[in-house]
């Protein structure tokens, strides 16, 4: 076996050990239920002469390619559209007969497997549009590269989001304003470094760099011998550039950077430190710093002609931005340099998850998945919600510390379940949570003193336990003055079960249309049931409303209602899949039990989207399925994380067709790489 072959072998073993890349798997025989279901649910508009929107499914089915043949591009595009509409549940339209969840899954699988030829043995990793660092990643990377703490995040415009996350390459736009900001921050940070490093020399005439700047001056002050200074400068710049660009720097770029440093050094009042500071400014403004360029692994055979493994530097960056929202640390760089990162992956993932830097993953992934980011900023009229007479009292009860603790509660629980290797479903059913005194008092849980958030066993007689009873979830799904069972139900469908209902038809007013007709003594349930009599609304609201109503005993600020009317709230309901529940605890257990595969799939899709930086496509089915099966075996939340990292879209990328290959990286002899 050649060296390359051995290496590839090692990778496959390493990757399989973590779990998700399976390069084996034969296409299943085409099944007959797919076409039957398509005809049943879509045929009225899209078959037998019907071709609404230019889609005639019977014609498309008849043009089904032979096994192994490449289907016609136009037909493919149609099928991709069919797949998207089925998956997003935008088809069939809300006012038509809907397939069951299981049938929908069958349909989606049928289209991707049989009509689009997606099989695990021919992986398509898709294309992630060149990602610029979002403002969180940018701020963290500036901090970790330079050691300078500077609140740069708030200077940058808010990033746009796509697919629910702010890590999506195609959506992270670049505008002149942003470039202006980048350049301004780069020169300010560089200036501070120059000032601090120069100041550190003043005392005894010897150079002692402040501890936090030592990463920029790893080879110490310039040597006394003049002839060695050039080489010393070059090595210092090379180390900076390699860390800043997160991969070895090519000779040409390095020489230009050294020239920048030299000319700053030669200016009146210049110095070695000022030269390095100018190089820092330049690196921070470079596209190689601001964007995440990825190269393919030259030492690894492509998985298939269209799919190549990314190189280990790219992998190190994907890992560190996924789990830490920042650049790789020295250990990841070392492993990438040695070419052993893939081999060490399980250990590295473990190390990274248990490192406090993974708080960033929790904060930003959970912050967007469960919207905990919003709990501190959403406008809430607590006076109205709690029926108080003055606003001040409301703000004291639902204070800033309470809001902050709500966010922390959900984040800390997720981190706990992740780091302790607990089942993913513990997020829903645990009888533990994280509280401090303000939040415990807000919830009415006794015996928690002090502002420190700590792990608490929830008393048995308390109506808390699992994220559905967290203040964060209850608040972010409310309107400013009242609960919204529809929003709560929708949230559960979208973010926990992964079966969002079709969007409301345009020009249909919100659900509570009937409130005024029924008078002010009508309960929320009365109002909603009346609304559901409208057939157009009924099909979707039958899915959302019972879920939201199960939570009606919590008010819009997330407190358990104690008024007399609350005692009569009927929280019983039924999932659209048929299972019934009496209250929120049974609902949580249902999602964690009979519907757990839906939950695993939903969470997997969210995390994969966040991690790879693009929306999921029809060809991602095998990657998602692999992870779901894996989690079903060992139940753990960490398995989803490792599964995402080991997946085809995380480990590979599409081969860039017909493009000039990038210059081979400059590999200096064993040193000065990141």
């Amino acid at each position, binding site marked *: 076996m050649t060296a390359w072959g051995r290496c590839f072998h090692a990778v496959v073993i390493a990757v399989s050990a973590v779990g998700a890349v399976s390069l084996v798997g034969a296409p299943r025989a085409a099944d007959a239920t797919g076409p039957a279901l398509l005809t049943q649910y879509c045929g009225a508009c899209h078959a037998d002469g019907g071709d609404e929107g230019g889609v005639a499914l019977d014609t498309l089915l008849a043009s089904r390619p032979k096994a192994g043949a490449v289907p016609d591009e136009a037909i493919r595009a149609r099928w991709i559209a069919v797949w998207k509409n089925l998956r997003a549940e935008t088809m069939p339209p809300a006012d038509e007969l809907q397939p069951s969840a299981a049938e929908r899954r069958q349909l989606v699988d049928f289209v991707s497997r049989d009509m689009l030829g997606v099989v695990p043995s021919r992986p398509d990793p898709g*294309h992630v*549009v*060149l990602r*610029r660092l979002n403002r969180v990643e940018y701020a963290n990377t500036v901090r970790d590269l330079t050691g300078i703490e500077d609140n740069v995040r*708030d*200077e940058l*415009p*808010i990033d*746009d*989001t*796509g697919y*629910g996350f702010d890590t*999506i390459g*195609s*959506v992270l*736009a*670049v*505008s*002149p304003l*942003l*470039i*202006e900001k980048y*350049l*301004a921050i*780069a*020169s300010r940070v560089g200036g501070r470094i120059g000032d601090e490093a120069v100041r550190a020399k003043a005392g005894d005439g010897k150079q002692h760099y402040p501890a936090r700047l030592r990463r920029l001056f790893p080879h110490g002050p310039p040597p006394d011998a003049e002839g060695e200074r050039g080489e010393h400068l070059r090595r210092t710049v090379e180390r900076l550039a390699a860390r800043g660009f997160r991969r070895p720097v090519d000779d040409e770029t390095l020489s230009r950077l050294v020239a920048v440093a030299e000319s700053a050094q030669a200016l009146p009042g210049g110095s070695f430190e000022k030269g390095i500071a100018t190089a820092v400014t*330049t690196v921070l*403004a*470079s*596209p*190689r710093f601001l*964007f995440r360029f990825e190269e393919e692994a030259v030492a690894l055979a492509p998985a298939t002609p269209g799919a190549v493994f990314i190189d280990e530097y790219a992998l190190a960056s994907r890992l560190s931005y996924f789990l830490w929202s920042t650049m790789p640390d020295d250990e990841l760089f070392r492993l990438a340099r040695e070419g052993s990162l893939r081999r060490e992956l399980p250990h590295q993932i473990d190390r990274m998850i248990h490192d406090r830097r993974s708080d960033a993953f929790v904060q930003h992934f959970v912050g*967007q998945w469960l*919207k905990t*980011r*919003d709990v*501190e*900023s959403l*406008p*809430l*009229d607590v006076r109205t919600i709690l029926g108080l007479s003055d*606003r001040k009292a409301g703000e004291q009860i639902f204070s*800033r510390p309470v809001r902050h603790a709500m*966010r922390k509660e959900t984040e800390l629980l997720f981190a706990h379940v992740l780091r302790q290797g607990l089942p993913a479903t513990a997020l829903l059913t645990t009888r533990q949570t994280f509280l401090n005194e303000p939040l415990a008092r807000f919830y009415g849980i006794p015996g928690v003193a002090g502002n420190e958030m700590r792990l608490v066993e929830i008393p048995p007689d308390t109506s808390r336990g699992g994220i559905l009873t967290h203040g964060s979830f209850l608040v972010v799904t409310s*309107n*400013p003055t009242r609960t919204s069972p529809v929003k709560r139900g929708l949230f559960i469908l979208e*973010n926990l079960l992964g079966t969002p209902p079709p*969007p409301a*038809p*345009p*020009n249909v*007013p*919100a659900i509570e*249309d009937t*409130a005024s007709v029924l008078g002010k003594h009508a309960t929320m349930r009365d109002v909603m049931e009346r609304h559901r009599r409208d057939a157009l609304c009924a099909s979707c609201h039958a899915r959302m409303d019972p879920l939201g109503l199960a939570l009606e005993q919590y008010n819009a600020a997330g407190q358990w209602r104690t008024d007399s009317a609350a005692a009569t709230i009927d929280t019983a309901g039924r999932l659209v899949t048929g299972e019934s529940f009496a209250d929120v605890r049974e609902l949580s257990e249902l999602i964690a039990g009979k519907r757990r595969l839906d939950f695993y799939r939903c969470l997997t899709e969210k995390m994969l989207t966040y991690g790879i930086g693009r*929306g999921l496509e029809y060809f991602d089915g095998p990657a998602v399925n692999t992870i779901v099966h894996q989690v079903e075996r060992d139940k753990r939340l960490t398995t989803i994380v490792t599964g995402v990292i080991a997946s085809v879209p995380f480990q590979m990328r599409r081969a860039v067709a017909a*493009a*000039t*290959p*990038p210059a081979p990286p400059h590999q200096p002899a064993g040193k000065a790489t990141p």
Partner: protein
Amino acid sequence: MSETDSHRPRGILSRRAVLRGLGATVALPALESFRPTGMARVSAASVTTPTRMAFLYIPNGVNVDCWRPRGNGSDFELGSTLEPLASFKADLQVITGLAHQCGTAGADGAGDHARASATFLTGARPKKTAGDDIHVGISVDQLAAAAVGNATRFASLELSCDTSRTSGHCDSGYSCAYQHNIAWRSANQPVAPETNPRLVFERLFGAGQGTDRAASFAARRAAQKSILDFVMADAKGVRRGLAAADRRKLDEYLAGLREIERQVTRFDALPPKVPDRELPDRPPPAHSEHIRLLGDMLVLAFQTDSTRIATFMLAHDGSNRSFPEIGVGDGHHELSHHRQIKESLEKIALIDRFYAEQFAYVLGRLREVKESDGQSLLDHSMVVYASGLSDGNRHRHDDLPVVVAGRAGGRLAVGRHVKLPSEQPMTNLYLTMLDLMGAPQTSFGDSTGLLDAVRT
């Protein structure tokens, strides 16, 4: 740590204190004395007073009955929620009968709020996507900026009061980019707005006080100059070997560099002199104060001829902001689905009035500034104040609420209610404005022709 602005420092300056600091009672110097010396190098066009254009976006439509003026032509009365504009009645036109057909559902289904924002200045139909292949159209302000932005230090200014955004999915399968941006440099490149008045000020004039400010600005320019060569070359180097979609990202970066290069090479390092200004570190929590501070920045940018083009989202469409300042605790979006309930409609009217008051403030500032020809800055401006929806309850994209203030140097016929006999695309108004701006186009978005009715 926090993604939100929840930890604002206490005791930030009140707006009044800030205005005192600025010396609002002191007569503001005329434009000419503000002009940076570098302006002398700019074309002869700047000898005559330039025309400015601004677009202020109000979200979620309005209470149409309270908004609509009575009467027609110059014999008209403002609707009740526009009463705060009474003293500007002779400086503005209310236009009824404009529509954004690209905002309607069409074959795209739900998502009217995303479309309301996205079509507002583009007149184009946004492609329904949650992320990939975002596509709508270039916006009218950016078209103008491309044509005349060269004359000023900044081609355009983008502002917004949305300091935080709700997480997760945006409207019905549309990427949040559609809902949170109204300025589009190209069909797929939104221009993100700034929200912090202090940062806007420092960007325009430098950080610090007095002469420090000019020095800080000059230092920034010098730094930009020295970095540009390296990063330009670097960007071209990495561009090779990229897939097409990636190349487009990098081209956005290069376009940004070129814009800075233009600023650096065409204008002197020193910013125009403006009075010192104390501004809070973070946007103020009160919505009215936030709008007014950003409004001040817009006026200052026009006054100093730092730019002639601005867009300002008072809030994005679909915004569920509440208005404790005026005793409306409910969310705006939630209220906008009023279902003809009297109480909800009344609250919407209160919000409409609130926004009109802030608009009146901005107009007042524009009218205070006298230009070298003795006319006011408002006289030389055209300021559109409008929403992408009319009745929020039914997501109507026709009969839009539109006010155009200012005379564009005497070329707009102010003091009237322009009641169009038949519906016209909003982009007809924009096409006319582009004409007045010296950036004529034969068509724009879904335009069908010029809106001569607004001209003198």
